[in-house]
């Protein structure tokens, strides 16, 4: 009973903190760097989703609208499971509270963008209602593709190479501690000190942070939903409560990944029964702010820039792994 209360309490605390993160990112960093007032801190993460919950639900243009609408919920659940298995009370679940399970759940979060992109058919991609068969029009009989189809293809590419840095970084603490179980990794650090303070840990943390930005599709790694072409990308057709879920999912993913970092590199798992949760919250606040500081000064990367950066981060991750073996 005590454990269940601990898990539920920790999730609630995590959820509440996660709602403030998008606001902190936009108000404290982006707005300040760009010398503008910016939105109220509560606006992007709390008030906006709240507003969307009370808006009229519009059925999306999609071949499978209900499946499309349910995808943010699936994403949120997969993130929730990742967070759940970082809470120390769940370490007894064995294989679930391990790096492999976390990689599996992160993959679900990544794959849903492929589904979202494939299932969204927004009006933004439609032609004007005058025919392209008009005299002089180029290539009149070409098959039209929706903007979100490009996002789906990009999501495939990101799955193929974009997530390498994060996944490699996840295994650095596993190699150092000699176990893929989160419980063992935390226990190792309680004895030997945080992995972050080793050479492999520092490199691993840098790679983890790059992977964190890629997974959150933040500038400059925002090609999945680049305003310059695919606009909102896979999210384009979400409205009302489903859009609110998208916002909540992203905020919660920010918090969960930061918590994962605290567990793997600092040895501090989230629990409302210890002061350690303050460390989790601090990391969760610092990560988005650090990310915003980078993203405020970066343009969107096309694949021409994306490939070398990811390749470089992957190499760095491999170096961290080798250092961890040594």
């Amino acid at each position, binding site marked *: 009973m005590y454990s269940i209360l601990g898990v539920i309490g920790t999730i609630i605390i995590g959820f509440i903190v996660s709602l403030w993160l998008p606001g902190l990112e936009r108000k404290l960093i*982006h707005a300040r*760097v*760009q*010398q*503008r007032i910016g939105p109220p801190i509560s606006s992007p993460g709390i008030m906006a989703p709240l507003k969307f919950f009370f808006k009229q639900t519009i059925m999306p243009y999609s071949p499978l609208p209900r499946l499309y609408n349910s995808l943010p919920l699936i994403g949120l659940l997969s993130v929730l499971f990742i967070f759940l298995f970082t809470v120390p009370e769940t370490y007894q679940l064995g294989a679930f509270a391990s790096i492999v399970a976390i990689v599996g759940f992160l993959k679900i979060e990544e794959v849903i963008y492929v589904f979202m992109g494939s299932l969204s058919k927004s009006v*933004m*991609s*439609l*032609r*004007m209602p005058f025919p*392209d068969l008009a*005299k002089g*029009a*180029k*290539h009149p009989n*070409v*098959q*039209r*593709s929706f*903007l979100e189809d*490009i996002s789906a*293809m990009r999501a495939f590419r990101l799955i193929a190479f974009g997530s390498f840095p994060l996944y490699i970084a996840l295994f650095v603490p596993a190699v150092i501690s000699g176990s893929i179980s989160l419980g063992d990794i935390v226990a190792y650090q309680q004895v030997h000190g945080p992995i972050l303070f080793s050479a492999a840990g520092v490199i691993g943390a840098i790679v983890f942070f790059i992977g964190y930005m890629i997974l959150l599709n933040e*500038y*400059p790694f*925002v*090609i999945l939903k*680049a*305003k*310059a*072409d695919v*606009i909102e990308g896979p999210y384009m057709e979400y409205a009302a409560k489903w859009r609110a879920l998208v916002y909540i999912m992203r905020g919660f993913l920010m918090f969960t990944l930061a918590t994962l970092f605290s567990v793997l590199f600092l040895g501090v798992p989230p629990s409302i029964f210890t002061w350690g949760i303050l460390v989790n919250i601090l990391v969760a606040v610092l990560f988005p702010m650090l990310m915003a500081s980078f993203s*405020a*000064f*970066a*343009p*969107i*990367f*096309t*694949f*021409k*820039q994306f490939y070398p950066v990811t390749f470089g981060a992957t190499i760095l991750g491999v170096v961290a792994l080798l250092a961890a073996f040594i």
Partner: protein
Amino acid sequence: MDKNVIETEITMGTVHSAAIEPYRVRLFVEDEIVKDAEITVGVNHRGVERIMEGLPVEKANSLTEKICGICSGVHLWNSVLVAEKGLEVEIPERASYIRIIVAELERIHSHLLYLAHGNEVLGHETFSMRLFYIRETVMELLRIIGGNRVQYGVPIIGGIRPRAELDEMKVQKIREGIDYIRGKVKEFADRFTSDPMIMSRITGVCPLNRKDALRLAVTGPTLRATGVEFDTRKEMECYDPFEFDVITQDDGDVKSNLLVRVFEIFESVKIIKQALKNLPEGAVVDRSWEMQDTDITKSYVEAPRGTLYHSYALEDGRVRNVVIRTPSIANIGAMQYALIGHHITDAQLGIVQCDPCFTCTDRAIEIIKRR
């Protein structure tokens, strides 16, 4: 599979987050690489020429300011020049200087808007915001001179509106304003060109070579970015007292286009400084001209986007046969051509590099006669 067959079309617009104006671009792509492109305008048509037809010349002139929200002043100036050429009106030298000051301030604000929008499409919101802040100074200077941030209505037939006369206080404010802008734009240019991430995004992207630029009849800074040294200001008599360079770059890509505009801002500042220093004394308007009928008269000026053409005839004090040709119409071909072979994410950037103003371009009516 036949390699010439294009398989997929991506359509952006007429409403799109990267486009500040309504137009449509059809991109024919393979693996996210643009193989061909087609830009369509037409949803913004207001028929300004048709409305001007038969209006008294002063009214028709003031209507030309409504053609563009960015280069409103240069449209009015050119339209007034048509009347002045037709009626053989000589304007006071002081008025000519003030017109040039306003035109150059407008060029600075247009180029700053271009740089800000370019950065927005590039995904660099911070630079975009900061450039908009710098632009505010120019807008304020234009407000001080003409009374409005846009559509300041400075030129009239015979000179300038007396409201736009420059007293000592205004001259001082313009001096301080342009010094501030010059310093800030220089800081921006240094920071911008030393950023490897930005340089990687804009170098070699959507280039246009000199030969293609001439073949496609490209104009303005977009033409100069390909290395062609042509500026209509060098052909204009009123610019004779001023010393300035025609800025060119060699590569015709996004980087060259951005840099041409940055350096042109410095040249505009140079011209304004000369104008303020040597501002002649005297009246700013000569109202002694008389109305008479004229043949179709043509006038060309260098608008911020390139050569702007206005022509009309006068009949009983009313305008007839109005034709306006904006620079962007000449650059549409370049926009389409420059995209080929580049990534879709660079497509809007390739269009924006030519500084399109489709809203002022959108005026032609093509009547297709049915057989």
